[in-house]
């Protein structure tokens, strides 16, 4: 499996570590609703098909990415940067 790192180009999967589902949203810290926190910690949609997920290019540029990948075919259809460089892939 190859992942198109926006910084380094098309690189082998073995250079990356997986960071899991990128669609879950952490509740704001003052939120004291236990059910919302439990949902954030434990509950996943786990789709067959398109999946947005975090990958860390740990043996490359060390950027964190959001990758869109099909969980049935393993086809990777895109990757973008997150953090301070988000949105500056082509700048």
């Amino acid at each position, binding site marked *: 499996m190859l992942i198109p790192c926006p910084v380094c180009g098309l690189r082998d999967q073995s250079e990356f570590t997986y960071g899991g589902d990128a669609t879950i949203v952490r509740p704001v810290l003052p939120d004291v609703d236990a059910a919302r926190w439990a949902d954030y910690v434990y509950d996943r949609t786990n789709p*067959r098909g398109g999946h947005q997920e975090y990958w860390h290019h740990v043996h490359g540029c060390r950027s964190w990415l959001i990758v869109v990948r099909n*969980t049935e*075919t*393993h086809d990777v259809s895109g990757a973008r940067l997150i953090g301070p460089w988000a949105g500056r892939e082509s700048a």
Partner: protein
Amino acid sequence: MAEYSVFSVLRHGLSGNRGWKPAWRKAEPKPSYDVIVVGGGGHGLATAFYLAKEHGIRDVAVLERGWIGQGNVGRNTTIVRSNYDLDENQKFYEWSMKLWEGLSHVLDYNVMFSQRGVLNLANSPSQLDQYAERGNGMRLNGIDAELLGRDEVAKLCPGLDVSDNARFPVVGGLLQPRAGTARHDAVAWGYAHAADRLGVDIIENCEVTGFLKEGGRVVGVTTSRGSIRAPKVGVAVAGNTSEVLRKAGIEKLPIESHVLQAFVTEPLKPLINCVVTFGGGHMYVSQSDKGGLVYGGNLDYYNSYAQRGNLPVVHEVATELLACFPNVGKVRLVRSWGGLVDMTMDGSPIIATGPLPGMYLNTGWNYGGFKATPASGWCFAWTIASDAAHVLNAPFTLERFHEGRPIDERGAGPTPRLH
């Protein structure tokens, strides 16, 4: 009289082997049943068998999207053990072990259960301390466990590199002598055969496409072969649980689907006479009766619904095998495959009533589904028949995560791929 015996082999042999009946009928779906079990894997078939045998509920349909033996029941490394650390898991998996010990006779089908022992290698003194703790806990629950030093490990497993030069020197190990392997295809066929003979309909090529509901209660399923009604619908579909329950309107579960690969080498003369697990990384190996080394290791680590993995794990697991057995360096890999496993947030399974009225859920088997097959079916059948959990599966609820009572065997936290 047993359908399969030395006498039936002789009798059918003398008549040209034309008298054998199929091991199970190709059943056509009826409009309704007392119980529907969705998923014709090992657990679904075992559930149907124990419903019929232990609870007298014989009007049961097992619905399988593909064919019997296609899924995880034929995609594992065939290891059976009960050497767990936590009390809940020890009791559940030891009950499974006891069912394994009589299984061939109960099913009238030889599952080739071989109690050759499972040896967990310790590669550091602290790991051996942890194994001592685990072994003591096992023995308190009536499970066999023996703590071994390096010399005893070397004697038990002559092919293993226990030298000081090993990449991960062996300091000892924990042995469960009653553990071992079983022929996984025979387990699927045996449960299908035995359930069929008790009247269960095993319906292959029958995909569940939706759930019938009346007043919020599940009253049946729609399938690729028409609607089938039943007051009780059990779901045992392993890695497909999230997608199947989505058809019932349940969008989120504490489960991720991952791919777990397994490998077989070309046949060798006897080299490894027990199951060896390597905890310096994560690898487990045994030698099949045919002579191939059957081994596996970690998941591929990313969510997957593909029954195939990628090359980095092939390399990693082979490397670990060589770290233990440098003498197999020139042995060729002949087959590999991937199974779609249902990893939970604590690494422990779910066998429970719900999540909707009329529905029953069996999922979350992580790395441990094959060895659990008998107890999983036995407990799920009990839960379906009596609308309540048996004491053995009472801790394995779906709600335990939101209630803050996870059963985290490995202590890896809510990260399914790390269990």
